[in-house]
């Protein structure tokens, strides 16, 4: 009996030693040799405890124009708090053009918030939580640390946190599927605003759904590596890389002064870039040198400088630019976008068998969607015609305003004005841009004109449209005496 006990305890002792060594051995494999921090159960719990208090739900009312009027469209999204001043990073398509924002924090408190600035080109927006309310209610919140996205490894574990379908504080787990996803040559838009041009996407299989937009994608150290932005199908989801977001946030905050909405100013040359993959032989170009000019925009800096379609752009300001694959286009575009605006830039080009140097002056990048306003009395909303819009529709020039929506039953709709009509003049006076249009509209309404002649560009022609405008009667003032006495009641 005693020997048995000894034997058992001896065995147990050996077992303990073996187990001890095992643990130490595997633990050292786990920590020392792992290429990325992995989603062990412990890590998942630890990261979620860190990140959840920094993730918020946003209930937003975005400004849109519909039925000839300025109105709002309500939606739900997610966001991540990025500093102790209470700024929240989210998507443009969640909070861009927001007129009202309510934020629900992790502790379920609801507070108002304001839009600081937005950038549709990268689908990002920065929102400010109302710090007064936070102080008043003694609300605590955490902010997330921003990590790096360039070093993400395919296969790396990541987590997405957000508000899918309004189900706040939802966490999903997955991996990085691809870290340089491009959709070139497809163009993406949000409500007709261009997006996705200046960076590639993080593709991940963490399930995200409508409502997750704007929430963080985090690695297993708890740092934000991306902003969840788009779903694409079964486990094919996309996030804006944090390395793209960082400078955008900085520039939005820097420009949001004196009550102005923050934005990102970019430079433009008017060149559409194309990868040279498999086209090198056609242009006598070495592999991996230069980028093809697919087309040059009308009236653009590049056109004015003499750049032509099929030129191969070799260098900008003596720094080489190479785009062989579609994945490299975004970075090249971004390089041009980050040039100083309004400054000379040297372009080295290869054309036919020669090399030439041209000088262009960059302009401010402008999208196709201009500023929009409502004209309530006429029952129509109109938008400034930008050069990009004029080019996309091959209009003769960038003058005029384009009709976007009409109010049924009001003068513009009754005169059979149509969406996409470009209004060129009011009562014979040219409406070169939205401000000129607004001035003439205000004057017409003030004068209570009941017939207004518009010249409208529709198709290839310019036609006359006459608005018959009615005005509400003036409300009687209190000093006006009634003109007739009421009937005396019969006795």
């Amino acid at each position, binding site marked *: 009996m005693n020997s048995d006990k000894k034997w058992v305890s001896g065995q147990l002792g050996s077992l303990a030693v073996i187990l001890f060594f095992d643990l130490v051995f595997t633990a050292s494999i786990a920590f020392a040799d792992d290429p990325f921090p992995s989603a062990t159960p412990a890590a998942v719990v630890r990261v979620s405890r860190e990140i959840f208090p920094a993730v918020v739900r946003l209930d937003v009312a975005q400004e849109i124009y519909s039925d000839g009027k300025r109105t709002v469209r309500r939606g739900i999204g997610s966001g991540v708090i990025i500093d102790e001043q209470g700024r929240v990073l989210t998507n443009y398509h969640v909070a861009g053009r927001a007129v009202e924002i309510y934020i629900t924090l992790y502790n379920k408190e609801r507070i108002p918030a304001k839009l600081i600035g937005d950038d549709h080109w990268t689908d990002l927006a920065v929102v400010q939580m109302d710090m007064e309310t936070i102080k008043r209610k003694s609300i605590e919140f955490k902010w997330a640390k921003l990590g790096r996205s360039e070093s993400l490894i395919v296969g790396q574990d990541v987590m997405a946190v957000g508000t899918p379908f309004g189900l706040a504080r939802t966490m999903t787990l997955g991996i990085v599927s691809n870290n340089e996803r491009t959709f070139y*040559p497809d163009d993406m838009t949000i409500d007709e605003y261009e997006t996705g041009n200046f960076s590639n996407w993080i593709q991940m299989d963490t399930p995200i759904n409508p409502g997750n937009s704007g929430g963080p994608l985090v690695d297993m150290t708890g740092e934000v590596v991306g902003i969840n932005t788009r779903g694409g199908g079964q486990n094919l989801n996309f996030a804006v890389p944090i390395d793209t977001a960082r400078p955008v946030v900085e520039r939005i905050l820097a420009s949001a002064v004196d009550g102005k909405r923050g934005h990102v100013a970019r430079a433009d040359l008017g060149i*559409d870039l*194309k990868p040279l993959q*498999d*086209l090198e032989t*056609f242009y006598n170009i070495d592999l991996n040198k230069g980028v*093809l000019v*697919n*087309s*040059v*925009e*009308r009236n653009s800096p590049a056109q004015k400088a003499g750049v032509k*379609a*099929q030129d191969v752009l070799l260098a900008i300001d003596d720094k080489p630019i190479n785009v062989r694959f579609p994945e490299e286009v975004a970075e090249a575009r971004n390089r041009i976008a980050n040039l100083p605006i309004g400054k000379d830039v040297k372009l080295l080009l290869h054309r036919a068998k020669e090399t030439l140097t041209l000088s262009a002056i960059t302009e401010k990048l402008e999208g196709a969607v201009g500023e929009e306003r409502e004209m309530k009395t006429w029952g129509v909303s109109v938008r400034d015609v930008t050069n990009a819009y004029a*080019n*996309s529709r*091959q209009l003769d020039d960038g003058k005029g305003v384009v009709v976007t929506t009409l109010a049924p039953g009001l003068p513009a709709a009754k*005169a*059979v004005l149509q969406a996409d009509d470009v209004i060129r003049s009011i009562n014979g006076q040219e409406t070169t841009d939205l401000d000129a249009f607004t001035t003439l509209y205000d004057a017409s309404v003030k004068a209570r004109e009941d*017939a207004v*002649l518009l*010249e409208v560009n*529709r*198709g*290839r*022609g*310019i*036609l*006359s*449209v*006459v*608005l*018959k405008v009615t005005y509400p009667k003036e409300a009687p003032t209190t000093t006006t005496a009634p003109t007739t006495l009421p009937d005396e009641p019969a006795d």
Partner: protein
Amino acid sequence: MSRLACLFICLFLLPLTARAQIDPKVVQEVYDRVTPSLVVVQYTWDSELGKREVFTPAIVVSADGLVMFSMYAVSLEIPDEQLKDFKVVIPSVEKDHQELEAEFTGRDERTLLAFARIKEKGTYPALKFVDTPVQLGESLMSIGLLPKQGGYKGYVMRSTVAAHLRGAYPYILVSGGLGMVGAPVINAKGEAVGFVNWQQGQSPYLNFLQQPLQAVQLPPTLFQPSRDFAQSFEDPIESGKPQALPWSGMGQITGLTKDVADFFGLKDTPAVEITDVIPGGPADKVGLKKGMKIVKLDGKPIERGDEPDDLPQILQRYLHRKKVGDTVAVTIIEARGKEPREVKVVLEGQPARPNIAKRFWAEDLGFGVRELTFYDTYFRRLPVDQKGVSISLIKPEGAAETAKLAANDIVTELNETPVATLEDFKKVYESTRASKPGDAMKLVVLRQGATQVIRIEPPQ
């Protein structure tokens, strides 16, 4: 009964007898007399992607074998060179249908009819159309043809005149139903007073039917009175040539709405505004400009339509009744408050359209090209002297489709050679494909005002 009562009863009965149904004996007589003139026109659409046979009802209109049918059965979308193997099928009950070779005469866009001529010499039973106006409430017959499965048998439809429509196409509306598109319309006296042409919801084809009896169950209710297509007989189209339609060079015109008309002092005056003028065209040559309003044609007010949108077509049709070289006097108002003045426009020939443009089918890479026409450059907002060829067709699953070449792209360069004409394109294409069949081709195209460089990889 008193005489007064008799008179009263007779007067009461008289209108009833006048509106009575057509006697079945009359119907049988008309049927027997008219159906020998009802035939089927058959042709093959030989497209780049395959052949398709098309069958449409037609009417023999002259004893030497001229046959008339709806222009919509030979769509302008089909390139003329692809309309092949015309035949006229004479249906028969007792024997096999007779198939006779025919020659396509052409389309008459003034009247929306098309014509073909039987090649074999003979005397064919013809139906003559008569310009007899129809009255409200009048009873009419129409004989349509059943589809192939029905042996092309004639079937009689009965109707009553409900309204005379106005506008660019002043058709007659009936209650009841008419024969399918291509059918003649006959009055109680046995006269052919109209033709059932294409209309919304109807098909001119005897094949491609979802349901064989759909034209009987949901019949047409509009027909073209004889007067509306008399021009085809008074001034027949020439065979083998595209129709020379007169053209005024006004690129776009719009009918004035009531509010716009009132604003310009044109109450109760149908008017159109010239909204675009083609540079160098007939209107431009005599100084017509955008913004001018036309109030009279050849001294007469413009025919009134049901709504302003009808007016451009009414004007178009009016001009189509003239010939190339004719003068039309347009009375215009230049600006509000100005007196109307007359301007004489000399009509020229309409620019050639895509259906007669020469084509080339690049079968191996799966795309078709054709010559550019005025319509391509005008609607695509390109300079009138734009050189190049237009992509007419992309073969599904072909190399060109994979390379994202698109229909209506305008090719300006192929490999390193500029392409100005179809010949340029063919030459470079054929020689390159022959000498280097494994090499990719580079096309530079114009798409929506911007250039695109497209690389097509040939199939392995």
